[in-house]
């Protein structure tokens, strides 16, 4: 029976170790909880969202302050309406802030960068950011470059 006890102990440790590995990867090393951040909703319309997707980060001065919640086509303006959830901590973003879509590095994922404006009122839940800059589409830049070159 002693051997039996030993076996059960080892099996218990094995199972705990496996579950611990899973938990560490799921809770510690992942972006778990980031999307659970309590926040307020802000929308912005873009001509082109490029590679932006749901869960893409929303950053301010390089720091992630929120997530993209949904991206849909606005039925009247045919622009892409991006709905973002911004952490309640950052509740004093000026109402005339810019929302730009940048790319992290050369091949990185795309994100929304908020450039603060100077207005006194702050963005609140349900507000819309009016100043936006769409994602830079590589093909347009290249073709524009070639076009300009051809004109010369």
């Amino acid at each position, binding site marked *: 029976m002693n051997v039996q006890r030993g*076996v059960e102990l080892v099996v218990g440790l*094995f199972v705990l170790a*496996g579950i611990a590995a899973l938990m560490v990867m799921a809770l510690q090393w*992942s*972006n*778990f909880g980031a999307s659970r951040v309590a926040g307020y909703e802000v929308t912005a319309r873009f001509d082109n969202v490029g590679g932006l997707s749901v869960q893409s980060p929303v950053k301010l001065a390089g720091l992630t302050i929120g997530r993209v919640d949904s991206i849909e086509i606005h039925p009247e303006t045919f622009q892409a309406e991006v709905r973002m959830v911004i952490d309640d901590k950052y509740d004093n973003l000026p109402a005339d802030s810019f929302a730009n879509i940048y790319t992290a590095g*050369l*091949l*990185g994922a795309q994100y929304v960068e908020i450039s603060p404006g100077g207005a006194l009122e702050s963005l609140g839940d349900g507000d819309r950011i009016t100043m936006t800059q769409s994602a830079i589409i590589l093909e347009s830049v290249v073709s524009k470059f070639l076009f300009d070159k051809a004109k010369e």
Partner: protein
Amino acid sequence: MKWSLNAIARLGRLFLDGAQHAGSMAFFALELAWVLIPTWSRPRDIFQQIYAAGVLSLVIILVAGGFVGLVLGLQGYNILSNFNASESLGVMVALSLVRELGPVVAALLFAGRAGSAITAEIALMKTTEQLAALEMMAIDPMRRVIGPRFWGAMISVPLLAAMFSLVGIVGGYLIGVVVLGVDQASYWGQIREQMEAWDDVAGGAIKSLAFGAVIALISVYEGYRAEPTASGMARATTQTVVLSSLAVLGLDFVMTAFMFGA
């Protein structure tokens, strides 16, 4: 002309044999399903099997995980450097492991080490009439012998896959950060930002659960249906490894398309 007809006939035979094999396994799976829950009335047996299948596979899994992580780190660094994106090494290693390599490689290794052992053991018990002895003692061998081994395998595989991925990520860290100079904060930070708890980690865990079930089923089936001869046993263990491996890879594609598909 006759040669090609023979070849086609051979193909047809292969297909029919395969279909019969699959059908037979399906019936067996149904029989097994009946006793899966009742098997837990003797948890000791199941713990014993988790030990035999899981704990004893730990060494090969951890060592392999370490090596795979090291190689991923090395190759990943080489490739990413071309794009000046070596800071993303952490994400590359972590996602490759958690989504794919962890579940798949751990499953393949398990099939080779523990799956074949289970098949051999059951086949031997069949050959030496131990299974028949159980039946004649009015004890259901499905419940006593097959069931616990199935659960043992199915529980072990996801745990082993998780540990494989963990060790691999650490391995990537060792090569990338400690040796090749990738920024430590970037390595972990990017993982923390990009790896999804639900989609990636849980997805990988679900995959390995499915793999575990498949390998467990194939291992016990081949043992139970093995011919009671020496060559029969050898063939059964080979079948287990081959079939399990193919099944894991095939299932991996299907599940990946389903979970991560565009």
